């Protein structure tokens, strides 16, 4: 449980600075520090237990089916990172109190900072891969917010976008890797996966996993060729740079390398990829750092270089190299955070970060200068400081490896060269800024910073010294525990002494220092050499690429969708044609083995009639009435087809829907232009469209034929077998609708209700063209409601209602049911509307159709909920048989209540649509404010 609090407290702390912002900056800072300090306290309580090798695990199952659990673990590595995140985080909070000016929104800054801190703690504590990835992405997002904190600056926005794009893309790659690891290992729990290294390394997916994994780690840790985003993220306020871009976030990538070291390392591919990337990054970063005039730019590239160094160590393939990598993670975080803070102080007190202007600051701020120089010496690897120890371990390990086979001697050579550049840029930081003449037109007169702004730097520099002088006492246990967690095996023997005697590594150190001195003394020549190259800013290159991409996508989008629905429809159909036709080429033969039915002349005649009617609809679509009559012929034959091929329910439904549809079309004819302007009489268009349509039709026909002539393996046997015993009805189609798949039906009648409501809204406040004559000039008939129709329909009404009641009641056992009965009732009522008019109907049947739809849905839902009262699942039906004198035996089923809801909804929806459309021409039509 305690481990959980380490993560939860800073997360809860996000609210504190925002809530208490009005109590002033100092109170705000103290309150912000409260939660991380508590978390740090809890963490330190675990120290003895972690150092003795125990792992605290905390887990809550969340979505066990997906392997997604809330799991946390605290082992040596997680402990080390938590210590860095919380410890340096607290110093940063203190530092930011003095760094941010009055005009900055400090509460927001602190909230972002704690958000980032929680995300970072989540990454290092997560014991579940998916959860780890979630926090990983949160670090990207929170760092985006922090980099763009001064969002009024263009470079801050550009830098933040670049960082988010690069690390976000890497995050996607990482997700791919983690999902594949989970797939291969069969679990997403990290503790289990750590023991399954062999399974993963021998998996056929290993190359893909490794590539995606390294992409994720390298983008986050700014490794070559993704190093370009980190220097531009320096547009952030300096506390952010000190925290995210030196101590924590960029370390997330190397953390990942460390975390998965026992799982993915120990293969040739890992060693070569990781060591070469690390080496390239280290050299490139160190070289560029020397030429940066911006103080933070120098530190940024030196960070890139040191991250490369750590990566290189993880790629060297000896166990001691991994120990050295962990050690350097600690050391780099300590000295680089203090250097960034020192750079921030210099910037804050002198107004610039340009090293061409900053000279001779020793006179103005001797105390800060001393602190900065100690930290910079540690960066250079000067003895008695922590940087020296890990650099010495690096040199030792470069001599003990054989990563590149016969060419392995390149590595110590190049590492020494990198070391020389590190010495050179550290010298430049010290000498250029604090000595080297007088300052050149600084915006402010530099002076020492406020007392407490220096405290964080002091603390970190003291740590540098203490670790450098008493390494074993200071970090021995921590390093042992963290390294053991990285290796997941027996710890190699290592010695943290300052003096190992005169040996090769010491010689390499000496060479590096000498080389660095030489480089720095001859810097003018070097700068002249570097000037010959064109200066390219990654920020603009990246922005240019992004803009190009956006322009291309916009062009593509404009080409695909130029605003014409007709054209979009054509393209969609073309795509559907290609997609559905392609698989047919693989089919050997359209005809299958399923026995076919013999054809008879009735079917042939009907099919011929339907084809003819279809073409009439197509050909005379501009003669609207002819087209409609032909369309209704097609619909009738479709319902006959359903009846013939053993689907009586479908036939009944199709028949009644057909009537309603044609009635609706007839009503609509009145409101649509009687004579359309001929827009697309272009013969080319017609031929093109018809060809595509014919191709599509033939493809669909072929698929249909291929399907019909192949044997059927259906799941319906279950429905047939259980229809009577489980659903209490013999009409399987109806039982499926109201029982087996009742939930689907509930959704479908809801859709029906929604469509009717949409139509209701569309018809309100409509401005109509209401011609009082047809296009030939004939006036409409004066006799609006023919007497004969009125009399006949009135006497038919009770009969129709009786039929619909009969169809409804028998629906469970014989063809029929709520849908069909509802449609029949609706047709009977519409007929009354046609025969008598809206006013007459309104007087006799003042029914609110909206209410009818609502009550139908309500009844259907309620009948489903009813089964909960008996401890059953939603929409479970109940039925029993009863006997009444005169009536005989009959069955009652709860499905009937559900079917009644369907019945009401269908009536309501159908009448709402037709009656409101019919009312448009009358005084009863929907008016503004009716809804």
């Amino acid at each position, binding site marked *: 449980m305690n481990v959980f609090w380490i993560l939860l407290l800073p997360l809860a702390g996000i609210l504190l600075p925002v809530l208490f912002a009005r109590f002033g900056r100092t109170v705000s800072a103290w309150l912000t520090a409260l939660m991380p300090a508590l978390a740090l306290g809890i963490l330190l309580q675990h120290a003895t237990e972690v150092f003795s090798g125990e792992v605290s695990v905390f887990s809550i199952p969340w979505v066990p089916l997906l392997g997604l659990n809330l799991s946390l673990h605290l082992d040596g590595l997680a402990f080390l990172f938590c210590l860095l995140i919380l410890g340096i985080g607290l110093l940063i909070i203190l530092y930011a109190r003095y760094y941010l000016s009055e005009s900055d929104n400090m509460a927001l800054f602190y909230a972002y900072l704690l958000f980032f801190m929680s995300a970072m703690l989540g990454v290092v504590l997560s014991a579940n891969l998916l959860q780890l990835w979630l926090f990983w992405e949160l670090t990207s997002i929170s760092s985006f917010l922090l980099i763009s904190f001064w969002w009024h600056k263009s470079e801050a926005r550009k830098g933040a976008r670049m960082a988010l794009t690069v690390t976000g893309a890497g995050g996607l790659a990482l997700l791919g890797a983690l999902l594949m690891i989970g797939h291969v290992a069969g679990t997403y729990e990290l503790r289990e996966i750590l023991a399954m290294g062999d399974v993963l390394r021998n998996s056929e997916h290993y190359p893909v996993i490794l590539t995606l994994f390294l992409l994720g780690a390298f983008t986050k840790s700014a490794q070559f060729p993704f190093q370009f985003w980190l220097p531009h993220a320096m547009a952030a306020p300096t506390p952010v740079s000190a925290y995210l871009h030196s101590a924590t976030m960029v370390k997330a990538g190397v953390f990942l390398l460390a975390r998965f070291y026992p799982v993915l390392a120990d293969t040739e591919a890992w060693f070569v990829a990781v060591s070469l990337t690390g080496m390239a990054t280290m050299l490139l970063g160190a070289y560029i750092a020397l030429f940066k005039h911006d103080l933070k730019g120098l530190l940024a590239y030196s960070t890139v270089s040191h991250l490369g160094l750590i990566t290189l160590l993880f790629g060297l393939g000896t166990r001691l190299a991994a120990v050295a990598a962990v050690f350097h993670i600690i050391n780099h975080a300590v000295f680089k955070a203090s250097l960034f803070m020192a750079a921030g102080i210099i910037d804050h007190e002198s107004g610039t970060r340009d090293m061409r202007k900053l000279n001779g600051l020793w006179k103005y701020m001797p105390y800060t200068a001393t602190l900065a120089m100690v930290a910079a010496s540690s960066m250079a690897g000067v003895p008695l400081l922590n940087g020296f120890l890990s650099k010495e371990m690096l040199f030792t390990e470069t001599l003990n490896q054989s990563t590149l086979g016969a060419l392995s001697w390149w590595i110590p050579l190049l590492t020494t060269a990198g070391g020389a550049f590190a010495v050179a840029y550290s010298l430049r930081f010290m000498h250029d800024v604090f000595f080297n003449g007088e300052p050149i037109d600084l915006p402010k007169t530099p002076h020492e910073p406020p007392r407490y702004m220096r405290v964080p730097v002091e603390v970190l520099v003291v740590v540098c010294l203490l670790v450098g002088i008493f390494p074993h006492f200071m970090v021995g246990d921590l390093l042992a525990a963290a390294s053991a967690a990285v290796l997941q095996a027996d710890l190699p023997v290592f010695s943290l002494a300052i003096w190992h005697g005169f040996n090769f590594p010491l010689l390499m150190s000496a060479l590096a220092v000498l080389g660095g001195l030489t480089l720095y003394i001859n810097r003018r020549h070097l700068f002249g050499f570097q000037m010959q190259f064109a200066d390219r800013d990654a920020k603009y290159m990246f922005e240019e690429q992004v803009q190009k991409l956006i322009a291309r996508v916009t062009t593509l989008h404009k080409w695909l969708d130029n605003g014409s629905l007709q054209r979009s429809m054509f393209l969609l159909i073309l795509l559907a044609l290609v997609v559905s036709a392609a698989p047919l080429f693989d089919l050997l033969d359209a005809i299958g083995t399923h026995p076919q039915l013999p054809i008879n002349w009735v079917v042939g005649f009907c099919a011929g009639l339907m084809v003819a009617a279809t073409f009439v609809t197509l050909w005379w679509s501009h003669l609207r009435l002819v087209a409609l009559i032909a369309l209704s012929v097609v619909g009738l034959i479709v319902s006959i087809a359903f009846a013939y091929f053993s689907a009586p329910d479908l036939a009944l439904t199709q028949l009644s829907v057909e009537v309603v549809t044609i009635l609706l*079309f007839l009503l609509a004819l009145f409101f649509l232009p009687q004579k359309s302007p001929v827009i697309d009489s272009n013969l080319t268009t017609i031929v093109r469209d018809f060809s595509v349509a014919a191709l599509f039709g033939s493809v669909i026909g072929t698929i249909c034929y291929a399907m019909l002539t192949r044997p059927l393996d259906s799941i319906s046997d279950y429905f047939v077998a259980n229809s009577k015993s489980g659903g209490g009805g013999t009409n399987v189609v109806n039982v499926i609708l109201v029982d087996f798949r009742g939930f689907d039906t509930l959704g479908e009648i809801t859709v029906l209700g929604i469509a009717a409501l949409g139509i209701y809204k569309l018809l309100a406040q409509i401005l109509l063209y209401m011609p009082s004559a047809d296009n030939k000039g004939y006036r409409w008939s004066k006799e609006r409601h023919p007497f004969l129709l009125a009399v006949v329909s009135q006497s038919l009404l009770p009969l129709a209602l009786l039929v619909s009641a009969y169809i409804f009641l028998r629906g469970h056992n014989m063809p029929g049911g709520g849908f069909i009965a509802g449609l029949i009732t609706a047709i009977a009522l519409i007929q009354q509307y046609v025969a008598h008019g809206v006013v007459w109907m309104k007087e006799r049947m003042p029914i609110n159709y909206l209410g009818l739809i609502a009550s139908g849905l309500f009844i259907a839902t309620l009948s489903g909920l009813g089964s909960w009262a008996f401890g059953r699942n939603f929409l479970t039906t109940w039925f029993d048989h009863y006997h009444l004198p005169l009536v005989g035996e009959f069955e009652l089923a709860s499905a009937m209540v559900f079917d009644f809801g369907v019945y009401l909804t269908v009536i309501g929806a159908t009448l709402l649509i037709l009656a409101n459309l019919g009312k448009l021409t009358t005084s009863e039509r929907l008016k503004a404010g009716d809804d």
Partner: protein
Amino acid sequence: MEFTFAMSVGVLTTAGIYLMLRAQTFPVILGLTLLSYAVNLFLFASGRLTVNGAAIVGHSQAYADPLPQALVLTAIVIGFAMTAFVLILAIRARSDLGNDHVDGRELPPERSAMEDALANRIEKNQARQNRSRKKPANHQQAQQNNVKRKPT
């Protein structure tokens, strides 16, 4: 039999697609209706063709597959709702845009003399309604003015 059925589905699809590619709303809706016939028949065909085998327990030996039938039944009803919606949408588009082009282009409205007269009448009615609505608005303003005049 299967061939005839498949051919009919193909023909319905062809006509449906062709009409859906037209520029006026009415043919498009006709096409949509034809296409939904085709789709329903196609879905129905996934249960294969059976004669004299209605899926009613105890009525026959070889049952037709009831599952596609149940699916198609709701599809027919929803298809009706969709057709109705598109039809009303076309009416609304015509009344708002003055023409029946599917792209909703602002073409010059095609009106008969009768329609012109009618539209004029509707405009007049609306103008009258607006005038009658303004009155209370004026009243409110007067009230506000009164309020302003009061010393605060």
